[in-house]
Structure formats: structure tokens, C-alpha cells
């Protein structure tokens, strides 16, 4: 049913380039950027969540706001590189339920980040106090979501049933 769409996308110049260009700056570099972005978005979220949960309690919590731009840069790097990878192999991803699971985890991970921003970082007095229970729950959920996204993303390489339609 989606076959005509996959065939159209897989014959576009960009898609063919992603799959077939043998230069090291093509597919291997896109994949490397996707992994670096993952390290920053999942890793910096993890560092912030650990602080909310009580690790490194003498770090003024509000200062973690300064790392948000780095975290979001990682996220957007991955959104862009992820879309390019998807254009290269649309059938492989979109016919695999694991891909949708990954998207759900990422969506929930972003929801957690936004909720933490609203519920934890809105209270300037929180710098050195224990974070209220609600904020800690969001932090725990965020750790679980990014771990889930990493697992689902990694498993994409082992669970696909069809590589391309063309």
C-alpha cells in the first residue's frame, strides 16, 4: 500500500546518495553525527536527571539551564541526520514496528524534558533544595525514555524485515 511512496522516495537522488555514495563523508559520517548527537541529548539529559534525583547535590540546579542549548543542539543534529537516514532507507525503518517504538520513546523523552523545564526550573529557590517528588518522577521517566530510545534505535539494525522496496 505504501510501496509506490517507498519506490518514489528510494529513487530520489538524495536517497540513492545516502545508500550508494562510497565517500567516507557520506553514510558513515551521517551515522557518526547521529551517534554524537545521541550522546549529547541522552547523556546531558541523564546528567541533569541524576542531579534532580540527588547526585552532585552541591551543583546549583539552575545552572543546568546553561546546558540546554548543547542538549537541544544534539537533539536537532539527530532530527536532521535521522531524517536523512530515513530518506536513505524508508522501507527498512517504516516497515519495522521497532522504529515507531523508538519515535514514541523520543516523543515521551521530549515531553519529560519540557515538563522538567516547567515544573523544576520554574522555581528559582530550588537551587540547593531537594526537588519535589513530581520533578523527581519526571527525571526518572526521562532516564527510562532515553534508555528505551537507545535500545529501540540500536535494535533497528537487527529487527528489520525489508531493506528497500526498489
Amino acid at each position, binding site marked *: 500500500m505504501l510501496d509506490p511512496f517507498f519506490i518514489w522516495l528510494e529513487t530520489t537522488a538524495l536517497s540513492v546518495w545516502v545508500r550508494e555514495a562510497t565517500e567516507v563523508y557520506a553514510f558513515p559520517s551521517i551515522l557518526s553525527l547521529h551517534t554524537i548527537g*545521541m*550522546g549529547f541529548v*541522552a*547523556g546531558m539529559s541523564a546528567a541533569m536527571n541524576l542531579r534532580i534525583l540527588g547526585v552532585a547535590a552541591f*551543583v*546549583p540546579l539552575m*545552572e543546568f539551564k546553561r*546546558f540546554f542549548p*548543547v542538549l537541544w543542539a544534539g537533539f536537532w543534529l539527530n532530527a536532521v541526520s535521522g531524517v536523512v537516514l530515513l530518506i536513505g532507507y524508508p522501507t527498512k525503518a517504516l516497515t519495522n514496528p521497532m522504529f515507531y517504538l523508538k519515535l514514541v520513546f523520543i516523543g515521551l523523552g521530549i515531553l519529560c524534558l519540557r515538563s522538567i523545564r516547567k515544573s523544576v526550573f520554574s522555581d528559582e529557590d530550588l537551587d540547593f533544595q531537594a526537588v519535589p517528588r513530581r520533578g523527581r518522577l519526571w527525571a526518572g521517566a526521562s532516564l527510562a525514555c532515553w534508555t528505551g530510545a537507545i535500545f529501540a534505535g540500536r535494535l533497528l539494525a537487527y529487527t528489520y524485515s525489508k531493506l528497500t522496496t526498489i
Partner: protein
Amino acid sequence: MHEFQAWLWSTLGSIHIVRPFMTSAWGWPICESLHFVGLSMLIGCVGTFDLRLVGMAKRVPIAAMHRLIPWGIAGYVINVITGSMFLVTTPDQYIYNPSFHFKILFMIIAGINVAVFYLAAFGQVKTLGSGVQAPLFARVIGGASLFLWTGVIVFGRMLTFYRPNPCNGEPEGFLSVCLK
């Protein structure tokens, strides 16, 4: 070098404990997933500390930020364990892979960078309180750490594309070299 590689290959290849697990349907994928979780912990926790050294979030005392480091080390340990499991399962795929050589090289330099930091800089910077910029020497170490661990990720990702293959009359694979 050739003899050393052959010795490594036979020695690592003789370790059989993890092979049944790694060749099972879920063994390798689970270890790969854990390897990426460990990578994120390392880059997230060590990288946040490095960014403070370089000059971000200066209101954070360096000693306070340093409490994140054990979590970065935990990520590193996860990756040494899972990485060793890959290595002893298919040693030829790494020992003869130029990308693996660069990955190990970057890990060694990153290790030296860590040693230099604790021997020559940490004693001084751990006393730096809120709002104080780290000295240039420590800032350079922090920047080098970010660069080196990012390099380790890149060469780790490149492993796939520089895999040696036996080339039994078949053409060379995508960016791969023949194992002579």
C-alpha cells in the same frame, strides 16, 4: 606487527566463555544497546564536567560538578565490558580494522589526558568556587577530553565500514579491505 596481530587474534579467539551468549539471537544486539547507553553516560557526565572546565556554567563549583564523574566512569566500565565481549567473539573484525586502531589510539590519548588532569590540574581546580574560571591549562584538558571522546565515538561508528573480509574472489565490500 603482523606477528603481534596474529598472536592477539589467536589469544583473544581462544576465549570462549561469552561466545554462546554473543552468538545467540539477542546477545550481540543487547550488548550493542548497552554499549550505546554507556557511551551516552560517558559523554553526558564527563562532557558536562568538561564543559564546566572549558567555561560553561561557571557558577558551579568544580568540586561539586566532579560528583558526576563516577557516573561517567560507570558508563566507561559498561563499555569496556561490552566492548571486550565483541572483541573476543570476532577478534579478526577488530584487530585488522584500521578504524579500531584509531579508536584505541584515541582511547589511549584520552587516558593520558585524564592522567594529566588528575596529576597536574585537579588539585588546583577542585578548590575553585562558584563563578571562577578554570586556568588555561585545565580548560585545554577539558576541551581535549571532549574532542578525544567524540573521536572515539566516530571511530567506533566507522568500524562497520572498514571491516576486513576474506575476499574469496568476491569484490571488496563498501569501504572494506581484504584480509590477506
